[in-house]
């Protein structure tokens, strides 16, 4: 039993089992809690700069990880020309920095805006901290230990498949630099926190909003105040 096995074989199963199991429990018994509890009505200016950059950046990067996991050959073929490799890597780094800056704005907002601080739970801060570690270690991995898009297909694609197919083999990770290990370990912490935090809102896809008729919400109380004036 070594640290490598504990962190990269056992922890993933514990984290993924809890993430899936508790999320199902929560969506069945606490369906209305599958939300991130929007604070847009409390503060919207900083939210715009933080939320849009963070969410678009992190979503595209996460998609990139998933593409490398599910269709690694597409990445390998794309990277076969160094210029295309650089294009992909620079895009990833730009998105990573964009998301990191956005997250920094969101953290700043949550700490400094009184109205937001009041509605914050301890778990909100935990999630922000984990995401910050994830982004910073990710950007370091992408720059200092480049070219991640390429070696991911040789190291992490087989590793993650070994976990998903219940034939775990964490040996490829044993010799990696600490920063990359921390990036992976931190992902499992995020998976652990997933079902117990606002992160569950990831499974809520508001696709209905694209199809339903528009509606305008009118605040009656305010209207009454206006009419009294």
């Amino acid at each position, binding site marked *: *039993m070594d640290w490598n*096995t*504990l962190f990269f074989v*056992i*922890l993933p*199963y*514990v984290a993924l089992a*809890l993430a899936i199991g508790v999320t199902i429990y929560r969506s069945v018994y606490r369906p209305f*809690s599958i939300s991130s*509890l929007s604070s847009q009505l409390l503060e*919207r*200016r900083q939210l*715009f*700069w933080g939320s*849009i950059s963070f969410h678009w*950046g992190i979503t595209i990067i996460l998609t990139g990880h998933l593409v490398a996991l599910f269709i690694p050959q597409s990445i*390998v073929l794309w*990277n*076969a*020309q*160094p*210029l295309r*490799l*650089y294009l992909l*890597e*620079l895009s990833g*780094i*730009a*998105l990573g*920095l*964009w998301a990191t*800056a956005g997250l920094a704005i969101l953290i700043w907002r949550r700490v400094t805006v009184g109205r937001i601080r*009041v*509605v*914050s*739970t*301890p*778990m909100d801060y935990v999630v922000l901290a984990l995401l910050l570690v994830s982004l910073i270690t990710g950007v370091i991995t992408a*720059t*200092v*230990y*480049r*070219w*991640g898009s*390429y*070696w991911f*297909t*040789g*190291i992490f694609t*087989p590793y993650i498949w070994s976990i998903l197919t219940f034939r775990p083999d964490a*040996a*490829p990770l*044993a*010799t*990696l*630099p600490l920063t990359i290990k921390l990036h992976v370990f931190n992902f499992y912490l995020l998976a*652990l926190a997933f079902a*117990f*935090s606002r992160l569950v809102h990831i499974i809520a896809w508001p696709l209905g909003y694209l199809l339903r008729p528009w509606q*305008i919400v009118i605040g009656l109380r305010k209207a009454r105040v206006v009419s009294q004036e």
Partner: protein
Amino acid sequence: MPLNSSPRAATAGLLRAAGLVVVVLTCLVVASTHADAAPAGQAGLPGETIFQQKCIACHTIGGGRLVGPDLEGATDRRDPAWLKAFIAAPDKVLASGDPLAAQLLKESNNVPMPNLGLSAQEVDAVLQYLAAQGGTAVGNTAGAAQPTPTPVTMVAQTGDAPQGMLLFTGQVALQRGGTPCIACHSVEGAGLLGGGALGPDLTQVHARYGGDQGLGAALAGLPFPSMQSIFANKQLTPAEQADLLVYFAAADQEGRTPLPRRNLLVILGVGAGLAGALFAGMAFFWPRQRMSIAQRLRKYGKL
């Protein structure tokens, strides 16, 4: 999750979080003790097999030195306890300031012997094999004690440097599906922003590994712990080894200086610039979202 944020709800949330941590830790501890009980995956491979797989790229027995020393008689030359410790964890022995390890490092063009992750049993097996191959047999009863020079996989000098460069950069795929070198390694002159930086720079690898013979053996076996899982079933073909060898030799002769720091700064600079452009794009393309529908209605009289 608490939908309101009263102190009581927050306390309850904290308690629940603490409970979760306890549950997870318990799971981890139980799981790890269970994993302890399981048999260790690789129980003793025979010494010869280990030698062929992990040592042959840098060492011969009676065939002269490659990157590392000729191991003929090594079990006689060195203190057994030292040998055992060094083979098990060369990185640790070197880090401990061991003078002999430092001297060997110098003799090996400063290429440190990697930690091969051998178990104590496997180290013993290798030592027995070495002893049987020409040192004093330690508990060896087999008759195979003749010092037969280990056949070194020599790469034919038929390589083609431009083809080697294409293999290095991945423009020509490795036949058995291995990840191209550029993913982790850099050779100055290959690619505008250089190669990867996860592994060491290979611009001068030909000289460091003692020329054709040493580097050829390394390319044949790729005995580096971080590469083994990637290339376990995807070894380089002899033709690929030859092309890469000639390419590395040519790159070394060009005598360029690797510039990893310049590449890193360029990458970070361009990345930060693009991120700034994305923020500028937000200001340009998303301005309406900063106002609520109600504000927009009040300001413009329409949506």
